[in-house]
């Protein structure tokens, strides 16, 4: 590279790159560093040590957790991909009745308030679960949900929407010519899918899978409730955070860092693989949906609707539970609206807060992730590379770590001006930004740069070209990314718990507190309300996107 005059460096995207770096430094690096240094602190003396890591890598307790984590992480991701990819393929390439419905349900699967989902599984498949009992009555003994296989099952059904949504968006942008060419060269539809389509949407699939993997590793509630002695790093770390001993959470931070390192490795591997590939197409020859007939059609519909329905089972159980009559924490057996009566006073504020914060965060996320994705995909500078890398970090940092970092950083000195609501919005923003960025990035990778170049060439300044050409083309990716951010933001618990005050309580906090008191009826009623509100939003978005879709492709 020759030295360039400063003038040429100061174009719009360079400025954006700079601003994004500053933003990440303040909202991400600063708070995290404050906490992460703890892993090198000796809990007793307060001095510097590597002892925590030595301990984590020598004690069997941690090593087992490490193995278990990898096991359920990999298997859960695999399971999610095995459901998500076919589902995406079917809905993108064939006429499936109720496509909007399927997408909506898939998103709603992600609206799984803490613990309550796992608890619902116990109500179905636990030792005394109704499905277990049903089979018992038939004389069939089925394994209970407890243990590694149960955790994997739940991960599979809980996380497949990430793979599904990302893959579906990507499939819709694969040039039909490629698939035609493969078929012309003798590929059966299945071979064509495996050899051409799959590799072409691999960036999206792998991104979805990475999200699954990272979330499986970080998921605490599921192994905590279903593990029965099967401990993962997340339960170990979480137990350490929640430990009532207080003091510096050095070991918890150390374990978190190890978890982060695992996810980080996966992400780096993915980036390595993607870096050598370019898949762009000009989007003028888009795939058309085929109408299947006969048993294939029936089987496909059964699969598509079956997957989302099974994944929705815990939610259905939760909704059902919310209508059970209760006496204190105990279900009396009848139906009633007692649980709803009991949340009548609290729910409205919490709902309003949840939506307000999540929505505010998502507006920011959508705008920023569009810009950031562009920088990552189209600018091959070192700064862009480091932004890409930093974008992985929020996935990996446990909410508690992030929240403690936020509070220590922003509740003191000159930052103290930010109110609690502002702090919550900012933390949702930074923690959920990667969903938006990842989804948008993989959309953008499929679009030929010559389209933007054409716009620039016609006199559109970078921002204009971006708004008028790039944005409309990546709308599907943006919508999916924003939805994922929205759903995960509205479900955020771990960092909210550290930050919220009485005016800013959110639904997940309410639900969590109800669970803490053993009030599952209330928790179920709150979850149902949250589900309903989110469901309406999501359905509306998909309807809108679907209509738009047909308008432009």
């Amino acid at each position: 590279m020759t030295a360039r005059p400063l003038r040429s460096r100061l174009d719009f995207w360079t400025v954006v790159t700079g601003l994004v770096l500053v933003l990440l430094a303040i909202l991400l690096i600063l708070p995290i560093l404050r906490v992460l240094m703890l892993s090198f602190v000796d809990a007793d003396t307060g001095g510097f040590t590597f002892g925590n890591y030595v301990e984590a890598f020598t004690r069997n307790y941690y090593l087992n957790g490490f193995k278990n984590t990898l096991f359920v992480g990999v298997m859960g991701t695999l399971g999610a991909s095995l459901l998500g990819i076919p589902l995406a393929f079917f809905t993108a390439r064939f006429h499936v009745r109720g496509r909007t419905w399927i997408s909506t349900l898939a998103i709603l699967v992600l609206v799984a308030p803490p613990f309550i989902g796992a608890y619902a599984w116990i109500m179905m498949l636990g030792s005394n679960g109704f499905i277990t009992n049903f089979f018992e009555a038939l004389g069939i003994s089925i394994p209970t949900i407890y243990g590694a296989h149960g955790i994997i099952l739940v991960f599979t059904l809980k996380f497949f929407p990430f793979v599904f949504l990302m893959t579906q968006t990507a499939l819709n942008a694969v040039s039909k010519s490629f698939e035609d060419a493969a078929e012309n060269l003798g590929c059966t539809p299945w071979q064509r899918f495996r050899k051409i389509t799959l590799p072409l949407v691999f960036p999206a699939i792998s991104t979805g899978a990475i999200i699954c993997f990272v979330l499986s590793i970080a998921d605490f509630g599921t192994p905590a409730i279903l593990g029965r002695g099967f401990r993962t790093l997340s339960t170990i770390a979480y137990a350490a955070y929640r430990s009532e001993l207080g003091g510096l959470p050095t070991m918890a931070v150390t374990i978190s860092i190890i978890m982060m390192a695992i996810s980080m490795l996966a992400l780096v591997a993915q980036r390595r693989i993607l870096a050598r590939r370019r898949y762009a197409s000009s989007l003028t020859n888009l795939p058309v949906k085929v109408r299947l007939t006969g048993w294939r059609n029936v089987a496909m519909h059964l699969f598509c609707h079956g997957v989302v329905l099974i994944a929705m089972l815990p939610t259905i159980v939760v909704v059902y539970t919310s209508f059970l009559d209760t006496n204190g924490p105990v279900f009396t057996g009848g139906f009633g609206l007692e649980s709803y009566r009991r949340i009548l006073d609290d729910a409205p504020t919490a709902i309003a807060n949840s939506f307000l914060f999540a929505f505010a965060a998502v507006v920011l996320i959508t705008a920023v992730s569009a810009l950031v994705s562009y920088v990552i995909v189209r600018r091959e500078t070192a700064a862009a590379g480091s932004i890409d890398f930093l974008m992985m970090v929020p996935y990996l940092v446990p909410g508690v770590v992030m929240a403690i970092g936020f509070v220590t950083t922003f509740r003191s000195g000159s930052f103290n001006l930010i109110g609690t609501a502002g702090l919550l919005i900012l933390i949702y923003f930074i923690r959920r930004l990667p969903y938006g960025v990842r989804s948008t990035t993989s959309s953008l990778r499929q679009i030929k740069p010559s389209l933007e170049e054409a716009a620039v060439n016609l006199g559109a300044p970078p921002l204009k070209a971006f708004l008028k050409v790039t944005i409309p083309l990546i709308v599907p990716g943006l919508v999916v990314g924003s939805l994922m951010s929205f759903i995960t933001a509205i479900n955020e618990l771990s960092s909210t718990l550290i930050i919220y005050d009485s005016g800013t309580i959110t639904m997940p906090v309410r639900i969590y507190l109800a669970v803490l008191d053993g009030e599952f009826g209330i928790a179920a009623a709150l979850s149902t309300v949250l589900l309903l509100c989110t469901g309406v939003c999501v359905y509306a978005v998909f309807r809108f996107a679907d209509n738009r879709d047909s308008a432009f492709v």
Partner: protein
Amino acid sequence: MSSVEITALRKLYGDVVALSDINISIPSGSFYTLLGPSGCGKTTLLRTIAGFHRQDAGSIEVAGSPIEDLPAYRRDVGMVFQDYAIFPHLSVRDNVAFGLRQRKVASAEIARRVEAVLKTVQLSQFIDRMPHELSGGQQQRVGLARAIVIEPKVLLMDEPLSNLDAKLRVDLRAELRRIQRELGITTIYVTHDQEEALAMSDTVCVMHGGVIQQASSPLEIYMEPANRFVASFVGANNFLAVTRTGASAALASGGVDLSGELAGTSGDVVAAVRPEALRVTAGRDEADAGGLAVPARLREVSFVGREMEVFGTTEGGEELKAVARPDPAIVDLHPGSEVTFRAPRSDLLFFEAGASGRRVA
């Protein structure tokens, strides 16, 4: 050996009629070219034969058996795509080897054939590049190599040489023809290049607006165009109005008597003459023994390599174009000078008036 038989084929895109009543019969091993203006349905026809979409009516037979119910991947019909459709995630080698792997060819054999075909398309040194590292023309050649390496029963090519320079195009044209003959592959070739069509084909099929205008040997297409569209598309012909008074007929702008040629015809007709049949002489001199001599004013002389193109306007306002060896006497004339366009009477063709009038004599 695989003849191709297409009967009463029809294809709509919504309201747009892309193909209507297409009937084509291609003997096994022959080279059949579709020629026609942009948007006339050439790509659509190829895609229908390849099986990427289904016709709305009509049937397609290969080697005597109908293929419309065969899925695309079982038709064994190779295709070169107009937009190349190179797999972006595979190297040049893997792109070309794709079809062979699909056919379970042994890997040593694959390597050999891939290298051979890449040599043919002059891409040997690019074998390990990824598609995004290739220029437009190089990508096009990868698409060509990928389709011919599998030696299909029927080969469809959609403007496979459009992004190549004349030299390479001529080389590849010859190679294509050689391979095609050697293997006896029935080939349907789409081109927008008249010369290419006439030079390579056993049969040229001229299409327009989804309808076949004429399908015959190159010579016949060139010498005996079935209608005015074919004449103008293939020969870039000059058209001259004919005035009729009773039984006598004459060129409107030249006074040449055409009663003999047009005996037995009726209605409005136009005369056509190919640019290369026209000679141009300086000055106005209508005397010509038995030949055509149309006085005109010179509009422009342009030089296109080995030939000059002379444009003139007759007194009646008709445009004329002649193509001839450069002639200093003409090249040095100023626009506006008087010239005479000449041709032997035998080079005149006559069509019914109207954009696609049939040939009458």
